[in-house]
């Protein structure tokens, strides 16, 4: 390699060739690096009689070097490509598959229950199959789900409509310790298509739901909560593109009896 570099461009000490380059002092440069250089030169040209032995050795070495390098390059390339394939396949996996991988997630869509699949907009109080509900007929006005953290229970009839729009609804047992509520709050604050509220009579500390799917756990730090949100937020929407803004922001149950939704609508907008 050093031989291919023209003498004048090198630093004087590394100019080993006997040529008169007019550059510095070639004779003094013959101290250390010169021996290997002249050996290599000799090996290449092979002027003397004893030289034929060395070409065989050198060629053997030359073969293994590039092979090792090539093998390393191939391995690295295969690793990079393999990871790329893995990452892209993982990244583009269907969200329902991701949910199915999370233990404890109940898939209510698979049950084909007409009460849960019902998407009609009805006024007034409704009854639901599950607690908290994961689907069913609901009021026309949805609960605002722009990362809203409600400190009082909200009406199922509005929350279910938010689920229809693709929101993740985190509910927690009423009276859960404040520090545990804060852990959940951090998952919601500032995130659109997220809402959170306490829920009366919840059988576990936390229940997280999107339309047709639910996960219940007693541990607010359960990793499955984050996995659930990551897989289903927005993706679970029954109406792609529907917004979480301009929804109802009041808390408390639907006023029974009067229940023609208009009161709630005006409260929401």
């Amino acid at each position, binding site marked *: 390699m050093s031989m291919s570099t023209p003498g004048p461009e090198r630093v004087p000490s590394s100019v080993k060739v006997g040529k008169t380059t007019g550059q510095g002092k070639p004779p003094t440069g013959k101290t250390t690096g010169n021996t290997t250089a002249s050996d290599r030169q000799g090996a290449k040209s092979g002027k003397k009689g004893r030289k034929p032995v060395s070409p*065989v050795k050198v*060629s*053997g070495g030359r*073969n293994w070097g590039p092979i090792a390098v*090539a093998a390393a390059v*191939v391995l690295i*390339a*295969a690793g990079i*490509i393999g990871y*790329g*394939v893995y*990452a*892209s396949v993982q*990244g*583009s996996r269907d*969200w329902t598959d991701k949910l199915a991988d999370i233990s404890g997630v109940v898939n209510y869509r698979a049950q084909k229950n007409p009460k849960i699949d019902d998407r009609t907009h009805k006024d007034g109080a409704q009854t639901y199959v599950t607690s908290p509900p994961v689907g069913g007929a609901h009021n026309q006005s949805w609960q*605002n789900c*722009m*990362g*809203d*953290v409600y400190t009082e229970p909200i009406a199922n009839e509005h929350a279910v409509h938010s689920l229809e729009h693709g929101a993740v609804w985190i509910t927690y047992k009423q009276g859960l310790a404040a520090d545990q509520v804060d852990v959940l709050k*951090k998952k919601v*604050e*500032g*995130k*659109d*298509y997220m809402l959170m509220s306490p829920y009366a009579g919840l059988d576990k500390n936390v229940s997280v739901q999107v339309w047709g799917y639910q996960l219940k756990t007693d541990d607010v730090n359960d990793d499955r909560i*984050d996995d659930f*949100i*990551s*897989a289903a*937020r*927005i*993706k679970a929407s029954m109406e*792609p*593109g529907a*917004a*979480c*803004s*301009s929804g109802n*922001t009041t808390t408390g149950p639907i006023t029974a009896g009067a229940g023609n939704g208009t009161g709630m609508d005006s409260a929401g*907008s």
Partner: protein
Amino acid sequence: MVQDVASPDAAPASGEAPALRRFGYAAVAVLLVGILLGTAIGLVVPRFRTPADDSVEAGFFRDMSSHHAQAVEMAMVAHAASGTPGIVTLAADIATTQQAQIGYMQAWLRDWDLSPTSDQRPMAWMPDSAGSVVNGLMPGMATPEQLASLRRATGKQLDVQFLTLMRAHHLGGIHMAQEAEKLSDDKDVDWLADSMVTAQQGEIQLIDDLLKQAQSG
């Protein structure tokens, strides 16, 4: 290969034939590896042509979708509650434009086979952005308290609050879009980011005028 290793000792005189054979083996091996690599590359190139899950483009679209959604939120509040024609029009313009841009961004993420959301922290795609996210809120975003106050406000108070919050929101959004334009080489992403910067810079001038009127009136 056995033949290959033995040949130098067995026939040192005829060194050219094994060398040729060795070259032949190497050529075949290179060819095979080439075919394998080529096939593998062919399989994943469609993936590599579109932005990856952790790309600037995907991160920007996800974060800007959320950022825009809040602008739509505030604009809809003002649109419903303001009595000032100029502000009602501005609010409608912001809400419809930004909701449409959310549609672009979400559709492109879908085209790229990427999730509309991310479990990374907000602004992870932007270098040195850690400090700009406060309580999970991106630059310029209103706090839940500010939003609650906006929903309660009426009259002049509502107008001033809306304009003030939207001004800060636009400044944050422009900052993000400019960074995305700088970091991304995707011409579609650059086009959308640039249209956001231009539109929102123009709107800030209008907001300043309306704010002056609201405060004096």
